[in-house]
């Protein structure tokens, strides 16, 4: 979810060259790869198409005349271009990827294979429903698993990511209030530790956001919550386990107070991985919760999506679910696509079509592979791994909440860096030189210089030990005064620290012919 949250772009110090440099800009076998616009293929194509009859006279002057400005690459050039670029990325498949709140776990390749079966991948969303019964059955079974695992009676599958799910949940809440004559409620309560998407979503739906204070032990301040719950409050949005990696001990009381005030309890389910198979949000009083299939159920993050964010709903909110949904009937499964017919209360539609089917297939394959026993083990190992890291690093770093166990992620503050002239950002960048992706930094906002480490359950003890050894060595270097190791880091990555300030001040968001490299030649005559 939320990463480098320092609030303003950073700018590197003027750096000295890091040792040996090549003559060409390459770093060993890592090529300095140009942009496709500089590779010169203005009249080239890597696709052989059957010759067609190119008569567009029926379209008259609706036909494009001027060049578009798209370079083409032959297949070998394209493969090389993208493979070279890929080598400049870190990935879960390379090492532990400890981004707190992001649940970077192993992505099983079986799931990729299943999603590519023609019976799923080559299905048109508007094909006659009698020809897609297997797809509807899969959606129905996925819904059954999600409802069973959360203890909730209904689920809206269509939201396309976590934030889209939050929007879906809040729209259901608003529709329910309106239906119950409570449409005047204008406030949503959000803890200060919340993901940025929570207040953004609430504001999006037109609610004003009021923050709830946090206790010294990292939980919702229930006294403050009780004081702020009023007839004007439509909902609370609480992440549980929360963004400090802690279980909200008073969650049942939070739900009770919320309901007593006539408000609904929205739970951000980003951290469901910590409790899946052991705790059902439905038992905690939750009315709506999105589930990031790309976190708990391991659909690949893909460098920033696609995700999927189905929302489970309580009985109170279920009638307001958006279209479409699947119903099982005598003649098989049916997709209800219009809310006006069979459930007049549905609040509308979150997107065209039916949701992220490709993610549904992967998530369902993941669920079947783990089963009820394996999913419970997922939560247990995720929590065990995080507590192990917390225990191993506590001697050299300062845990933000030292007392008691954490859940699936271990949160440290920057107290231990005091007096070193090294910041959380510097420390994180130095991790790159040691072969690890940085942890989530400066989030949650309630902890100074936060470092949030989420290992997930798919790390071996050996990898955890390697990671802890690397961070321990770095921490000792930091305390030993080896400031340059951190201030200039990373030294060994494909690039050194980037100038974000310059990028924001004068944005260059597209390549332009006069930037550098070759200019597009006019298109050769067809």
């Amino acid at each position, binding site marked *: 979810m939320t990463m480098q949250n320092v609030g*303003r772009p950073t700018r590197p110090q*003027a750096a000295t060259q890091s040792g040996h440099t090549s003559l060409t800009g390459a770093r060993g076998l890592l090529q300095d790869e140009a942009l*496709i*616009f500089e590779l010169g293929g203005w*009249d080239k194509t*890597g696709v052989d198409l*059957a010759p067609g009859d190119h008569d567009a006279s029926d*379209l008259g002057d*609706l036909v494009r005349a001027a060049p*578009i400005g*798209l370079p*083409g690459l032959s297949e070998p050039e*394209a493969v090389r271009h993208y493979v070279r670029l*890929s080598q*400049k990325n870190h990935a*879960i498949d390379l090492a532990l990827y400890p981004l707190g709140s992001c649940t970077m776990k192993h992505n099983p390749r079986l799931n*990729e294979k299943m999603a590519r079966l023609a019976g799923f991948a080559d*299905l048109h*969303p*508007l094909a006659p429903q*009698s020809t*897609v019964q*297997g797809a509807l*059955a899969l959606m129905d079974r996925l819904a059954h698993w999600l409802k069973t695992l959360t203890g909730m009676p209904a689920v809206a599958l269509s939201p396309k990511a976590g934030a*889209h799910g939050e929007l879906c949940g809040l729209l259901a809440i*608003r529709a329910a209030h309106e239906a119950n004559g409570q449409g005047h409620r204008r406030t949503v309560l959000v803890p200060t530790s919340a993901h*940025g998407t929570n207040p953004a979503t609430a504001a*999006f739906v037109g609610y004003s956001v009021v923050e709830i204070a946090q206790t010294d032990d990292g939980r919702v301040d229930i006294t403050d919550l009780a004081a702020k719950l009023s007839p004007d409050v439509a909902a609370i949005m609480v992440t549980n386990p929360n963004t400090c990696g802690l279980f909200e*001990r008073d969650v049942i009381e939070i739900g009770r107070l919320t309901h007593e005030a006539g408000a609904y309890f929205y739970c951000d389910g980003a951290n469901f991985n910590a409790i899946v198979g052991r*705790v059902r949000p439905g*038992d905690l009083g939750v009315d709506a919760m999105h589930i990031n299939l790309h976190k708990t159920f391991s659909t690949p*993050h*893909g*460098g*920033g999506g*696609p995700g999927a964010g189905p929302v489970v709903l309580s009985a109170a909110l279920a009638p307001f679910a958006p279209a479409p949904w699947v119903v099982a009937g005598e003649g098989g499964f049916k997709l209800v*696509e219009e809310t006006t017919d069979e459930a007049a209360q549905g*609040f*509308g*539609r*979150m997107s*065209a079509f039916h949701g*992220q*089917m490709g993610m549904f297939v992967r998530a369902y394959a993941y669920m079947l*592979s783990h089963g*009820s026993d394996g999913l419970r*083990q997922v939560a247990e*190992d995720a*929590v*065990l*791994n995080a507590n192990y890291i917390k225990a191993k690093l506590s001697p050299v770093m300062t845990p933000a909440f030292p007392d008691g*166990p954490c859940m699936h992620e271990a949160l440290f503050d920057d107290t231990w860096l005091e007096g070193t002239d090294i910041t959380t950002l510097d420390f994180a960048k130095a991790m*790159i030189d040691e072969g690890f992706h940085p942890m989530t930094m400066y989030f949650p906002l309630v902890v100074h210089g936060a470092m949030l480490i989420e290992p997930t359950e798919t790390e071996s003890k050996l990898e955890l030990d390697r990671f802890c050894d690397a961070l321990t060595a770095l921490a000792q270097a930091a305390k030993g005064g080896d400031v340059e190791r951190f201030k200039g880091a990373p030294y060994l990555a494909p*690039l*050194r620290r*980037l100038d974000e300030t310059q990028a*924001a001040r004068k*944005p260059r968001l*597209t390549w332009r012919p006069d930037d550098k490299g070759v200019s597009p030649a006019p*298109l050769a005559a067809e």
Partner: protein
Amino acid sequence: MRYLPLTPADRAEMLATIGVGTIDDLFSDVPEAARRRDLFDLPLHAGELEVERELSGLAAMNRPAGAGPFFCGAGAYRHHVPATVDHIIQRSEFLTSYTPYQPEIAQGTLQVLFEFQTQVAALTGLDVANASMYDGSTACAEAVMMSQRVTRRKKAVLSGGLHPQYAATTQTIAHAEGMDIVRQPAAIDAEAAVLNAIDAETACVVVQTPNVFGVVTDVTKIAEAAHAAGALLIVVTTEAVSYGLLKSPGEMGADIAVAEGQSIGNGLNFGGPYVGLFACREKLVRQMPGRLCGETVDAEGRRGFVLTLSTREQHIRREKATSNICTNSGLCALAFTIHLSLLGERGLRELAALNHSKARELRDALAAVPGVEILTPRFFNEFAIRLKGDAAAVVEALLADGVVAGVPFSRLNPHAGMDDVLLVSATETTTSEHIQAFASALAGRTA
């Protein structure tokens, strides 16, 4: 369990390091009443073989689009995707990486996004594009909300040629944000009607071309009328391949162009994941939703790319963000950009011409069928026909002939009184044999 590396011995050793006796001690903060001690009522774990068997069984219950004559479009299109595309997007470094927040170790993804943004800007004829939205419909909703931020007005006029599910999505989401959404009635040639709805309260006009009935429209006059009233023109395209043949939205005066990018690089996938394209004029860039990738330099002066202008975004601005979007469609954008790089200008133009040619062949074949009326005067690769009788019933009947005839308009909008209208589409994957099979089956059913 094949995905879980810890052994029982590891777990025991780790619990000892932590200083607790059992795993339950780590869940001690969970209230007693909420602790589930028994396994849930779901199957136990299963091997690859068993999982594959179950999912293959479900897949086999479906009829893939490629199984025979197939003419559905209406916002999702069956195109051939080169094998290279799927190979590259499955590389670990692209597939299993996170959003590129650490630019030093994410230049692969970032350079791809920069190239993607440049390609989308070129296709749409606009200055800047973002790093993708969820899909075309949510991009449309975001564009409408952006027009409110730009104009400080609340009214959005949606043309009756806009895909009904796009209109419903926009109505749901933008209305939630406090906008007044005026949906004009569905009509084949609906675009001219928007001119009368533009007034001094109008934030934006949303026009789709080719529209949901396949009609290609020159929106220049609509742009002029919108601008004269101080409103923005948003042009929606559901078939991105059409950019290869038709005048771009930017050329016709659009302020914002949004599109469904599925057609390029991405399969049908029963509706998702897809990739929303979003482009606009440079002066509007700070009101854009979603991620933007920008060029900069590293500490040694080498060119590099970073996510930028993030002060618009939720993780910095929280309740003041331009959108709540976080995860978008990174991998689908990668597929789009690889396919488009393979096509290049020459390939895209050829592909578009081929699609247009196939659709004309389909039009000619269907026009010869008694009782079929062609409704769309100018089209790219899809058009609407009027049948004698209920289009949905005809589609069901033709399934027996092995033909998936298209999308009945009533499926998208059952209230328009257009139950006899069928939307049909042809692409480069459509063969002359498919077209003949469709025409003769239809002749057999309507005779």
